[in-house]
């Protein structure tokens, strides 16, 4: 298994609001093997994105284990998680967060540079992805902070697929894309599966979901049981 969650729970404690404890997830158990794409389903607010953030190490799991390629993200040291994120685990979030002033081409090439790919080669790969995703070439040397929402989303996807991560988390990668770009993204996902990536995705678009997902997990099943 590439990704394996066992009895993971998550709650938020709001110390400055009367120490309210908000349980959001209980006993989440899930596993994904290489080459498989699992779609997370459930209503808005059911905890799909939360689950992804727990896997990425962005949210701290309260209990349970979150194994990704043999590393328990729930307990690992920051540098172990950073190595995992650099070499193994990719994440395409809903929002692009970049350093101002860095050109789109370099934003996309960065994950490749982080694993030691030579600059020219990294930029070539980045350029080909940006072209596939219909980002006009005149924008490549501009910072994506000035791009439209849809363009930023596509830059974000290009960045997520620049390096061949063995595990990928995709948070609504096809949202706000037109039919042609959606087809390109679905093609990238199928390509990643074919090379053996384990993928967890959130797709609101029914046809996209049916096309790439091998099975579904309803996160409502991980909702904490309300105290009676």
């Amino acid at each position, binding site marked *: 298994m590439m990704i394996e969650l066992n009895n993971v729970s998550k709650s938020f404690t*709001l*110390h*400055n609001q009367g120490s309210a404890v908000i349980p959001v997830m209980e006993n989440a158990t899930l596993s994904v093997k290489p080459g498989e794409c699992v779609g997370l389903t459930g209503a808005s607010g059911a905890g799909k994105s939360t689950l992804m953030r727990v896997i990425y*190490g*962005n*949210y*701290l799991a309260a209990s349970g284990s979150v194994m990704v390629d043999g590393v328990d993200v729930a307990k690992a040291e920051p*540098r172990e998680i950073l190595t995992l994120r650099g070499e193994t685990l990719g994440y395409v979030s809903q929002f692009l967060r970049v*350093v101002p002033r860095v050109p789109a081409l370099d934003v996309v090439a960065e994950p490749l540079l982080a694993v030691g790919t030579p600059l020219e080669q990294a930029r070539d790969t980045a350029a080909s992805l940006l072209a596939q995703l219909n980002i006009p070439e005149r924008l490549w040397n501009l910072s994506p902070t000035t791009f439209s929402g849809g363009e930023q989303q596509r830059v974000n996807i290009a960045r997520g697929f620049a390096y061949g991560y063995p595990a990928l988390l995709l948070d609504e990668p096809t949202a706000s894309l037109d039919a042609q770009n959606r087809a390109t993204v679905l093609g990238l996902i199928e390509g990643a599966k074919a090379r053996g990536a384990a993928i967890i995705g959130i797709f609101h678009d029914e046809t996209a979901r049916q096309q790439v997902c091998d099975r579904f997990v309803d996160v409502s099943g991980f909702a904490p049981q309300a105290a009676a």
Partner: protein
Amino acid sequence: MTPLLQVQNVAKFYGARIGCTDVSFDLYPGEVMGIVGESGSGKSTLLNSLAGHLPPDQGEVIFDTRANGPVDTVTMSEPERRMLSRTDWAFVHQHARDGLRMSVSAGGNIGERLMAVGDRHYGGIRAQAADWLGRVEISESRIDDRPSAFSGGMQQRLQIARNLVTGPRLVFMDEPTGGLDVSVQARLLDLLRGLVREMGLSAIIVTHDLAVVRLLADRLMVMKDGRVVETGLTDQVLDDPQHGYTQLLVSSVLQV
């Protein structure tokens, strides 16, 4: 892997008042750690105690030296510590004036550090100074100008060049972007990120600006009243803060 810096139980007191206390952490090669907290939380005291500017009252600051492996820098001799601070260590001050010699030319400011480690070839020193001015985006034509003729952002970039020219392995930074306007800040952050990656630097950055650490730091240490209240991966601490004080800090940031 041996940590580059091992900090064990460091404390600094000002009389009965706590400057900082019970601070322990390991910093590995290539790691960038941010220290955040409000004014008076002890973060600058800690940084100065680690960098040898203030003698800590307790604890060990063990640095993995090139020649002799891990050595406690608190108990090492003054000349040894001075040598370390000219070679493997660098310190970027908040106010560039504190880190630069204002009456010496830009080229001289960079060259001075090279000469301190034994470089004597004038042409070689000047060529390196010119190269570094370029790397921090200052025109080579300004090499003979004094830093007093530079803007605040340029002075800060010159200070960085002066510090990095000897290829240090550990850089201490005290509010490196403080006092600069946001466009200059963005440029400096971008520059620092590039240098950290290219040179494989380890760095400890003190700041109260959470946006700065999000972009630069791999991990965070949050301080309050001289003590560490929370540590962890930067985005985890900022997105899912566990301690009440960190939650307050994160929720107090104004959105733009």
